[in-house]
């Protein structure tokens, strides 16, 4: 590093670059923290006693307690509703994964007359407002005695999950090399055989992350659950809507944050799991493509 003036200019330039880079990193971390804060605040509040929740100004320091969890779990049917949510989310996720992945495969690879039209219609169905389905579903389910059943909610969730799975998996299957099926056909596999023995196993990362995203979507769905269930099959989001909208007893923030935390934690865990699979799937596609 012998000092010529040109080098000095370059060093200053590099220093300014470094500063810009640090600002970017700092800004990114700060924004991320800002976005995570409401979740942090929810978890924090769920461990407060009522006297620590209602303070001015709100406090960050208090003796944590699991009182809210214990008392609220006992009072309302939280566990029962949690179980309902698991049944419905898993059922809807499984049904729509099978149906949606097969249909997505059909759109991506199987020569079908009219497939393009079907695909377009199904993609367009993503624009259907759920309320336009909830009204007739309520009336029909009421007539058939299907209100407040898990299966009704599972079928209702298929309306938005199947198109979603189709859309994602179609892209995933399209990116696979066609030689896979050709080789399978040479080995005497039928179309179904090729799909289930060859395509499905190598698509597991994509299928799994799609499944998890579908389960999350079903897990947090509110409108259909509100309309189609009332006691037996009702889900956690309905319970939260009840707590949040309870104007008689005032704001029950302890219950809101405790049930909210219980709802969010498993989903966050799943989502972070998916992140791994997604990156892996993307990396595999990039290197093996």
């Amino acid at each position, binding site marked *: 590093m012998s000092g010529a003036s040109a080098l000095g200019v370059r060093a200053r330039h590099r220093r300014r670059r470094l500063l810009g880079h640090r600002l970017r990193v700092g800004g990114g971390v700060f924004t991320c923290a800002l976005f995570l804060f409401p979740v942090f605040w929810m978890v924090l509040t769920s461990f407060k006693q009522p006297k620590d929740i209602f303070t001015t100004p709100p406090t960050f320091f208090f003796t944590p307690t699991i009182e809210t969890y214990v008392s609220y779990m006992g009072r309302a049917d939280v566990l029962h509703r949690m179980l309902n949510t698991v049944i419905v989310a898993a059922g809807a996720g499984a049904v729509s994964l099978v149906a949606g992945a097969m249909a997505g495969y059909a759109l991506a690879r199987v020569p079908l007359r009219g497939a393009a039209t079907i695909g377009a219609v199904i993609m367009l169905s993503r*624009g259907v407002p759920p309320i336009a389905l909830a009204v007739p579903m309520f009336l029909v389910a009421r007539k058939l005695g299907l209100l407040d059943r898990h299966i009704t909610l599972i079928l209702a969730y298929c309306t938005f999950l199947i198109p979603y799975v189709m859309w994602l998996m179609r892209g995933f299957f399209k990116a696979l090399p066609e030689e896979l099926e050709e080789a399978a056909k040479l080995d005497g596999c039928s179309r179904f055989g090729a799909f289930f023995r060859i395509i499905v196993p190598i698509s597991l990362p994509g299928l799994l992350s799609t499944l998890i995203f579908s389960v999350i979507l079903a897990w947090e769905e509110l409108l259909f659950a509100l309309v189609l269930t009332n006691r037996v099959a009702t889900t956690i989001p309905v319970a*939260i809507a009840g707590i949040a909208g309870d104007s008689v007893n005032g704001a029950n923030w302890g219950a809101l944050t405790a049930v909210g935390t219980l709802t969010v934690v498993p989903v966050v865990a799943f989502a972070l799991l998916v992140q791994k699979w997604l990156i892996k799937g993307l990396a595999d596609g990039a290197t093996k493509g």
Partner: protein
Amino acid sequence: MASPTPRHPKARSRRVVRLTDLAGRWGFMSPAAVLLVATLAYPIFYTIRISFSELDLSTFSPGEWVGWDNYIDVLRDDRFWNALRVTGVYLALALPLQMVLGFGIAFLVNAEWRGRGAVRALFLIPMVVAPIVAGGVWRMMLDPLWGLANALIGLVGLGPIDWLGDPAWAMATIVIVDTWRWTPFVTLIATAALLALPGDVFEAAEIDGANWWTKFWFITLPLLVPVIAATFIVRWLGAVKMFDIALAATNGGPGRATNVINLFIYEEAFRSLNFAGAAAMAVIVLVGTMLLTAVFLRGSRMLEERH
């Protein structure tokens, strides 16, 4: 299969093979098709039918055909127009805000350092917080008396803001909550898109002496147009369904200031039991959404072709 057999059976077996092949091909499509016809197509037709009839509340089934009466009633209802206007304002504020913030934050997040992967993973979290929980928790934070938001802006001498009681601030509230939940989605798509930009083009531009603005306006933006358009459409399809956050954060209030269309239709159907009117509104919204979606799709294709 094709052993030396007479001509006629051979032709038949060929037809059988063709039929099994056809069945095999449609076999992939049929489970989804059957389920969607039963749960999507049939309810839509049923909604249309209800919207043209009087609903008999003793049997909860559509009764007498009344033509366009329900539609005329709905179109004369100020609350319906208010709900449409409120939804329009929300969409016009939230969607551009989320797109700009999403891509801006993606630029920050993409700065190369050890923690980049972790930051990106953490951005997933707001996206998977159930909207009803998001609405409730934000309502808690924005509470005029005990909320954290007013305490924080009080520290810098601002406020207090009546987040939930003032019509304009209530609209701001649902835009903020929705933006909090959905900007990370845009950010995650944008980080991938920004990383996929071809670096050599920027190097060439830099050698030619382009400043950051020229690079942004003439290279980055045109290259990102397809991603921006696709993300916008996905966000649009989600945002028109706005329901949970408005229900939890403001419950449509104060008055009807944040009574978005889905919330209003829900209330009409399940609180006022006006199923026929709700069905008519749902059909209007359905048609409007489809038309606008078609316009946006056409627009995005045109933009892509131009660039």
